[in-house]
C-alpha cells in the first residue's frame, strides 16, 4: 500500500486531466486509423498522415493567423485530401503487407521532406503554435466523432468496409464498388486524422519531423490491434491500454516502464491473439 | 462392407482413422488396406475427404483417432501422429495434387532433392538420379531448366520421378490426372502401371477420373462425404449399379 502511495503520491488532478487530454488527442488520430483498418487498409505510416495535418495546422495558425475554430475543420479537409492522395497512390494499387510498407515509406519520405524544409523549421521543428487544445475542446470534438463512427458502423458503408476487409474479390462480386469504398475509407479516416493532427499541433506547440515516425505509427496500430476490429470501442479501449498501461505497470523509472510494457505486448499477443474486444472471426 | 484380406499380405493397414481440422471433421471411421503388389484407388465426389485421408497417411496432418500400420518388410511401424519427414524416411512417397515441383530449382535439382534428405550415400543418389533421367528422357532433355517452366505433364513426370529417387516402398498419389490433356494422362497412367510392375512399388491413388483409375487399380474404395461407402475389386465397382449412378456418372 505504501508503495502504491509512493507511486501515485506525486499525482495531482491537473496531472490526471493532462494525461486524459493527451489520451483523447491520441485517440482521435487512432480512430482515423481505425476507419482505414476497418476497411482493410493497413497503414504503417499513419503518423505521417497525422504529421501532414499537424504541419498544415501549424502553417495556418502561425503563417496565416487563421483562427483555431476555422483551422480545425480546414485541417480536417486537408486530411481528407491527403487521404485521397494516399488512396490514389497506394490504397488502390497495393494491399496487405505491401500497403503497410508503402504507407510507411510515404511517411518516412514526408519526414525527410520536413527535415529539409527551412520554411517548416527543418530538424529543429516548427514552433510558436498557440496552446489551444485543452480538455474542453475534446469534449466538443470527441462526441460527434463517436456518433459518426457509430452511425457508420451500423450502416451499409460500414458493412462494405468489413466486406472488403474480409475478401476484396468476394465483396466485389457481391456488388460492392471496391475502389469507391476504399476511397470513402481513406477520406473519412483522413478527415478524422486531420482533426487529430490539428489538435496535436495545438497541444504540443512545437512539432518536429521525427515525432511522426514509425514508432508513433506502430503505437497507434497497436492500440487498434489491442482493441480488435469489431467495433471502434475496441480502439477506445486499446488506446487506453496503450496510453495508461505504461503508467500503471511499474516504478517511476521510464525505461523500466517501456520494458515491462513491451513484455506486456508480447504476452497479450500470445494470450489474446484476436484483440481485447473482438469476436473470434474478426481477423 | 467386409474386406477380404485373408489372401493378401497387407503392407499398409489404416484402421478407423478420423481426420479433423479444428472442429471440422473431414473424414471419419476410415479403414483401408493395401496388399503386396497392389494399386488401390480411393474414389469419391469432391469434398468427400479423400485428400485428407491421404494427407493423414503421409503425415501431413495427424489423425485425431485410429491407427495406421506400415510393414516395410522387416518391422511394422505405427505411423499415426508421426510427422511427414519421418514417414518419408520409412519409404512412403507422397505426390500431392498441386504445387508438385519446386519451381525455382532446376529439373536436376528437383530430382536431387528427392533423395538428398533421405539417402546418406551421395554416390548412390547420383546414380539414382542418372538412372531416372535415362528412364524419363524428357527430364534429361530439360535438366537445366527451372521446374516452374515445365508443362503440366512434364511437372507430373518430374514429381513422380522425384518420388522414386530414394526407392520408396509405397507411393501415395493425389489426383495425378489433374490438369492433364487426355494423351498425357494416358502416358502418366501407363508410367504408373510400369512402376508398379517393374519396381514392385505399391500405390494408393486418389482420383476424380474414375474410369482411368478403375482401369489402373486392382481394388477401389469409395468415400461419401467423410465416410467409407464401398470397397472391393474394381470390376465389382464398375458393375455396382447404385454406385455407378452415384459416382461414376454413367
Amino acid at each position, binding site marked *: 500500500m505504501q508503495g502504491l502511495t509512493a507511486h501515485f503520491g506525486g499525482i495531482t488532478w491537473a496531472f490526471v486531466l493532462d494525461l486524459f487530454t493527451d489520451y483523447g488527442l491520441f485517440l482521435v488520430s487512432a480512430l482515423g486509423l481505425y476507419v482505414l483498418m476497418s476497411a482493410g487498409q493497413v497503414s504503417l505510416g499513419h503518423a505521417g498522415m497525422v504529421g501532414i495535418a499537424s504541419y498544415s495546422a501549424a502553417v495556418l495558425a502561425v503563417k496565416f493567423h487563421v483562427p483555431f475554430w476555422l483551422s480545425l475543420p480546414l485541417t480536417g479537409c486537408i486530411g481528407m485530401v491527403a487521404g485521397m492522395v494516399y488512396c490514389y497512390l497506394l490504397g488502390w494499387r497495393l494491399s496487405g503487407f505491401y500497403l503497410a510498407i508503402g504507407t510507411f515509406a510515404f511517411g518516412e519520405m514526408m519526414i525527410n521532406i520536413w527535415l529539409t524544409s527551412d520554411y517548416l523549421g527543418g530538424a529543429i521543428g516548427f514552433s510558436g503554435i498557440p496552446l489551444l487544445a485543452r480538455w474542453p475542446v475534446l469534449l466538443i470534438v470527441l462526441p460527434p466523432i463517436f456518433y459518426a463512427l457509430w452511425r457508420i458502423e451500423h450502416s451499409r458503408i460500414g458493412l462494405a468496409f468489413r466486406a472488403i476487409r474480409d475478401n476484396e474479390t468476394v465483396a466485389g462480386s457481391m456488388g460492392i464498388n471496391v475502389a469507391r469504398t476504399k476511397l470513402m475509407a481513406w477520406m473519412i479516416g483522413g478527415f478524422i486524422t486531420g482533426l487529430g493532427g490539428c489538435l496535436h499541433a495545438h497541444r504540443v506547440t512545437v512539432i518536429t519531423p521525427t515525432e511522426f515516425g514509425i514508432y508513433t505509427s506502430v503505437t497507434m496500430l497497436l492500440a487498434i490491434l489491442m482493441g480488435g476490429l469489431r467495433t471502434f470501442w475496441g480502439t477506445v479501449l486499446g488506446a487506453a491500454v496503450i496510453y495508461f498501461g505504461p503508467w500503471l505497470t511499474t516504478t517511476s523509472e521510464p525505461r523500466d516502464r517501456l520494458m515491462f510494457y513491451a513484455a506486456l505486448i*508480447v504476452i497479450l499477443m500470445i494470450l489474446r491473439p484476436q484483440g481485447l474486444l473482438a469476436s473470434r472471426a474478426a481477423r | 462392407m467386409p474386406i477380404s484380406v485373408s489372401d493378401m499380405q497387407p503392407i499398409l493397414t489404416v484402421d478407423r482413422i478420423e481426420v479433423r481440422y479444428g472442429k471440422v471433421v473431414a473424414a471419419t471411421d476410415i479403414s483401408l488396406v493395401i496388399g503386396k503388389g497392389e494399386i488401390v484407388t480411393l474414389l469419391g465426389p469432391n469434398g468427400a475427404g479423400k485428400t485428407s485421408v491421404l494427407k493423414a497417411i503421409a503425415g501431413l496432418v495427424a489423425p485425431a483417432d485410429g491407427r495406421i500400420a506400415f510393414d516395410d518388410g522387416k518391422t511394422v511401424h505405427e505411423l499415426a501422429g508421426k510427422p511427414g519427414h519421418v514417414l518419408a524416411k520409412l519409404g512412403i512417397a507422397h505426390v500431392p495434387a498441386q504445387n508438385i515441383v519446386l519451381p525455382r530449382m532446376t529439373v536436376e535439382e528437383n530430382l536431387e532433392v528427392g533423395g538428398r534428405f533421405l539417402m546418406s550415400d551421395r554416390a548412390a543418389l547420383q546414380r539414382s538420379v542418372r538412372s531416372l533421367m535415362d528412364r524419363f528422357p524428357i527430364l534429361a532433355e530439360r535438366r537445366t531448366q527451372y521446374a516452374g517452366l515445365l508443362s503440366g505433364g512434364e511437372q507430373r513426370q518430374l514429381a513422380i520421378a522425384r518420388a522414386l529417387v530414394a526407392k520408396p516402398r509405397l507411393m501415395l498419389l493425389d489426383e495425378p490426372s489433374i490438369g492433364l490433356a487426355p494423351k498425357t494422362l494416358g502416358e502418366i497412367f501407363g508410367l504408373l502401371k510400369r512402376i508398379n510392375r517393374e519396381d514392385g512399388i505399391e500405390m494408393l491413388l486418389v482420383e476424380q477420373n474414375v474410369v482411368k483409375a478403375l482401369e489402373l487399380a486392382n481394388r477401389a474404395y469409395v468415400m461419401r462425404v467423410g465416410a467409407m461407402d464401398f470397397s472391393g475389386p474394381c470390376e465389382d465397382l464398375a458393375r455396382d449399379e447404385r454406385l455407378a449412378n452415384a459416382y461414376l456418372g454413367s
Partner: protein
Amino acid sequence: MAEYLFEQFLIGISTGAIYAIVAIGYNLVFGVMNVLNLSHGAVMMVGSFGVLLLFYLGIDNFWLAVAFGIALALVTGLLVERIAVRPLKGNWWNIKVATLGAAMFLENFVTRLTDGRPMPYPRPFKPVYYTIVGDFEVSNVQLFLIACSLGLMVAMMLFLRHTTPGKAIRVVAQNPDLAQCVGVNVQQTMVLGFALSAALAGCAGILNAVTFGSTYPFVGQFLGLKGLVILIVAGIGNVRGCLIVALVLGVLESFSVVAGGSQYRDLVAYSALVLTLLVRPHGLFGEEGRTGREI
C-alpha cells in the same frame, strides 16, 4: 574532388554491403516461416553490445569478443523465436506486433544497462592508409570491412546453394508441404533459418559498429528499416537481388550526401521505395506470385 568521391564510393559500398546482410537476414526468416521478424534490428544491436560486454568483463581480445557477440545475437534470436514467434502459430499480424514488442523490450533493456549513451567501439587493428593511385587512398579497416561483408554474402549464397541444410531451407521456402514429403524436418529447418538470420544480424551489428566507431541501443531501428526497404525494393525471397539493391542504395546514399548534405540520405532511400512500389509492386526482382498477404 575525385578522391573525395572515391572515398564516398567506398563508404557507400561498405554500408551497402552491411545493408545487404541485414536484408538477407529478413529474407531467411521470411523464406522459411513466411513471417516478418521485426526484432531483427534489435538482435543486431544485441550483437554489437555483446562485443562490448566481453571487453567490459575484462577479456581483451577483439576476435573472441566478436565470436561472443555473434553467439549472443544467435541466442537472442532463438529466444525471440521461441517466445514471440512459435506460440503465435503463423498469425502474421500478431507475429509482427509481438516481434516488435520483443525489439522494444531488448532496446529498453540495453538502454537500462548502459544509460543509453553511444558507446565507443574497439577497432580490429590500427588503421593504415594505402595509396592506390595518386591521391586515392584506402585504409586497411575499410578493406577489411568490405571483404568481411562481401565474404559473408558469398558464403551465405554458397551455403544455400550447395549444402544439405541450405537446400532444406530453400525447399521449405518454396513449399513446406513438399519439403516434408521429401524428408525435410520443417520445424528444425525453421529454427535453423531463424538462427542463421540472428547470427547474420549479429555480424551486421558488429560490422556497422566498427564502421561508425560506436554503437547505441537504438542503432537497430535505423539499420532494420534500411534492410526492410531493400527487402521490398529487391522483392521478397531474392538473395541476389538484395545484394544488388543494397550496394546500389549504399552508393546512392553516400553520393546524395555529397550532392546535398546528410539530410538527403534517407530521402533517397524512402523515395526509391515509394517509387518502386508504385511501378513494380512486387519489387524489382520479385515474382508476381508472392503477394504480401501472408507476410
